[in-house]
């Protein structure tokens, strides 16, 4: 079994790749997928800490896994609302390119 540091490094690497995707990509759906990737990377951190911080009885700390459960539920709701917003945006503007959506730019 790998050490805690390795799990945290993989999680940080996934988060950084997701962040790079959010910054680089122009397709708003791909940006949204990269956001989901960042959420999952945070989940990996939580599960790793849950496994390595064992309680008095020697079992993993299940509070962390319950938090992951809540994060996944909220992420599902977020995806549903976000994709509905993207579809509404596409209907209004006929584009998913963030370079064409500059009306909010100051």
């Amino acid at each position, binding site marked *: 079994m790998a050490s805690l540091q390795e799990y945290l490094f993989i999680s940080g690497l996934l988060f950084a790749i997701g962040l790079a995707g959010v*910054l680089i990509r122009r397709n708003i759906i791909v940006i949204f997928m990269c956001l989901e*990737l960042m959420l999952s990377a945070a989940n990996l951190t939580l*599960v790793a800490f849950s496994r390595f911080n064992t309680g008095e009885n020697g*079992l993993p700390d299940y509070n962390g896994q319950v938090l992951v459960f809540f994060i*996944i539920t909220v992420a599902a709701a977020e995806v549903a609302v976000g994709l509905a917003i993207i579809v509404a945006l596409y209907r209004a503007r006929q584009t998913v390119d963030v370079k064409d959506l500059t009306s909010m730019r100051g």
Partner: protein
Amino acid sequence: MPVFFYAFAAISIVGAIALVCFRNPVSSAISMVGSFVGLAALFIGLNAYFVGIIQILVYAGAIMVLFLFIIMLLDLKAPSTFKRSSPMVIVGGLIIPFTFVIQLSAVLPEVRGGNPQALPLEEAAKGFYDKDRDPDKQSEIYNSLRQKSLPDVNLVGLTLFGHKGDNTSIRTPGYNFPLQITGVLLLVATVGVVALSLKKKKSKSGGSES
């Protein structure tokens, strides 16, 4: 050497890189499914079986199918009309995450508790022994722990819903109120999606007719 850890970590990292690099959004979505499957395998390697299965069912199943459905609904193939981001954006988008990874690798050696240990399942079973019940009618958690298998789902449920007895070694008030709030959130999200996807026909046609 943990072979499976490196294999599945490589799968999830390669899937994530492919998600960012592919031009076609459908290819990006498929590679993201691969990344999530690798991540679920990492969860299972961390003895978090419930979270791993939920990751596959909800993320790799439901959410990514929703993404693929929307991509195909909007008909977003068009790699021919692909417009690359400006070089400044690409450089900035690589420098910021790279700085983040460097900072992370500088901090990581300070993290305590990096020694992996096998879970003491039979030891932990003693905490779940209920004196008020017959020895052959003990709880599922106790029986599973005695047979050296981790009753992951039962323990997550026990932590999530809480319990009153003090004969077990998990003492938590439970998360019943956040669970109810999450249910309300899902309901609000459903109503919001319906409200967002309604066509505003009346105001449009009314505006054009008048």
